[in-house]
């Protein structure tokens, strides 16, 4: 730990002050857009027009939030984005649960049971992490149509599960590789079967990786826009698509405060998860990159 300036000379103190100044300045830069959004979302339209981004409101109003939730126009309809938040929940919950469960079983089968071609199977699943989704967009649209799942919530769940498995499998595989094999070998000798070993030995130690995977998938699916805009209708679109429609619908006066309130509503769930479980969020982000 000696890679640190320790000597308290004036020069060193100055350098240390400079480091803190730079770090705090950057913190302000990162925070500013969020604060500006929040500030704008509680201003009246008159206040917005009279001032600028940073000017404080003369009166604080929560009207824009209510308006964004239940009245803002997404295209032709003006019912707010509240209903679309519910759509997102209906997509996110099953998609996260199913893809995480499959990923856990895959990761277990890939690490604790040896069979020929194992590395190949992992490699071919892993490739799904890397493709740009544009390359599957058109065939998926047609397949969903054939399955009768076009523009449905179920269809979007299917899409998110199918393309989430690559990531969830990667997470669980990299975690289970480090679980000692002795326990499993002993259980096998005792005659414990595939699922019993998973439930009794692997699952009890899996809490951290389950949290990482759930958070990762939750963030991915909640923030998704591409699949949402391609495979949903007005009734089933997720909140990101609705938000974009609110902001880019051209009818009437631009209500910046409502736009910002809607953006905050769409951002709150993932922000909340990040604040509550930031450690696990970071682990998910780095899991795919630090280990292969």
């Amino acid at each position, binding site marked *: 730990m000696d890679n640190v300036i320790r000597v308290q000379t004036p020069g060193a103190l100055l350098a240390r002050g400079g480091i803190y100044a730079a770090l705090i300045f950057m913190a302000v830069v990162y925070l500013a857009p969020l604060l500006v959004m929040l500030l704008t979302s509680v201003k009246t339209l008159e206040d917005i027009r009279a001032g*600028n981004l940073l000017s404080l409101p003369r009166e604080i109003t929560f009207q824009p939030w209510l308006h964004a939730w239940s009245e803002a126009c997404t295209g032709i309809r003006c019912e707010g984005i509240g209903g679309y938040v519910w759509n997102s929940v209906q997509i996110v919950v099953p998609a996260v649960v199913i893809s995480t469960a499959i990923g856990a079983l895959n990761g277990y*089968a890939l690490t604790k049971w040896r069979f020929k071609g194992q590395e190949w199977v992992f490699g071919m699943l892993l490739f799904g992490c890397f493709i740009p989704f544009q390359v599957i*967009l*058109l065939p998926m649209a047609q397949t969903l149509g054939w399955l009768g799942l076009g523009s449905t919530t179920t269809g979007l769940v299917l899409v998110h599960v199918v393309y989430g498995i690559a990531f969830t499998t990667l997470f669980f595989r990299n975690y289970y590789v480090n679980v000692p094999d002795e326990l499993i070998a002993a259980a096998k000798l005792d005659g414990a079967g595939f699922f019993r070993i998973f439930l009794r030995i692997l699952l009890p130690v899996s809490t951290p990786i389950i949290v990482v995977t759930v958070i990762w998938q939750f963030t991915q699916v909640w923030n998704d826009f591409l699949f949402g*805009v391609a495979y949903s209708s007005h009734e089933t679109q997720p909140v*990101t698509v609705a938000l*974009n429609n609110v902001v880019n619908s051209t009818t009437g006066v631009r209500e910046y405060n409502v736009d910002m309130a809607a953006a905050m509503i769409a951002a709150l769930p993932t922000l909340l998860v990040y604040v509550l479980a930031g450690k696990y969020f970071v682990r998910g982000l780095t899991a795919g990159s630090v280990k292969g």
Partner: protein
Amino acid sequence: MNTRASVQPRAGHLFAPNSASRVRRNGAYWLQAWLPKLVLAPSVAAALFFVYGFMLWTFVLSLTNSRMLPSYEFVGFAQYARLLSNDRWLVASTNLVIFGALFIAICLAIGIVLAILLDQRIRHEGAIRTIYLYPMALSFIVTGVAWKWILNPGLGIQQVVRDWGWESFTFDWLVNPDMAVYTLVIAGVWQASGFVMALFLAGLRAVDDSIIKAAQLDGASLPRIYWRVVLPCLRPVLFSAVMILAHIAIKSFDLVVALTGGGPGYASDLPATFMYDFSFSRSQIGMGAASAMMMLAGVLAIIVPYLYSELRSRDRG
């Protein structure tokens, strides 16, 4: 590793007192041997169909003259020829090079500097780190909406600076066709640079302290130690970061849609928005498919050397 492989298959034969139970055991043994494969089978089948099959399907579509609906009248590589002579595609791919290069370079610069500064035993490091990284939790749509508001010339930053007394200050990149693509860089860097910081900070923490001590004993200054000794150890992290950032850049779709809408005109289009527009709005499925294949080729050009070097280094290690 070998011990494990030899223990497992023998387990079924360890005790076999009579033939009836041996049959039963063999059945159970057979099932146990196949269960891992059965569990993996649906995922493998899904990958074969939804990933590899669909890639092939898109490639087939790119060879047809499909317009509003897929047709299977083959026209060879005509769609690629049309694509490459399409002005909008040229703008989109040029934009990707500009956006990608700047986005990656600036994210790396900011991320590395912040990681090194944070590595100096900073008080409240956790809180500061949280602040740097939170944009990564946001949807690109939210990021786009926020920056669209901040950068709008009427009431945004331009107005703030003018209100501070610099009356002639102009910052109209959002509506300036020559500059719109740089607003994507600003918003993208804001969102992803904290992530690079997190990657490098984790890397810095993993560097062996004794190397640094040795360099300090040699009388090297701190910046010099970082530049000459520590950063070269982080080459794998750099590699990962570049790969992930390049990946984000190529896939960037939502950010463009929310921030600039590809405009003014199509000045800030990227291949991802081009592909979506031609496939779903302009009824040019053949050309949309061709552009998707070009994107895939771009990703492969980055991923394959990366995976190759990863595998090679693992073989050596």
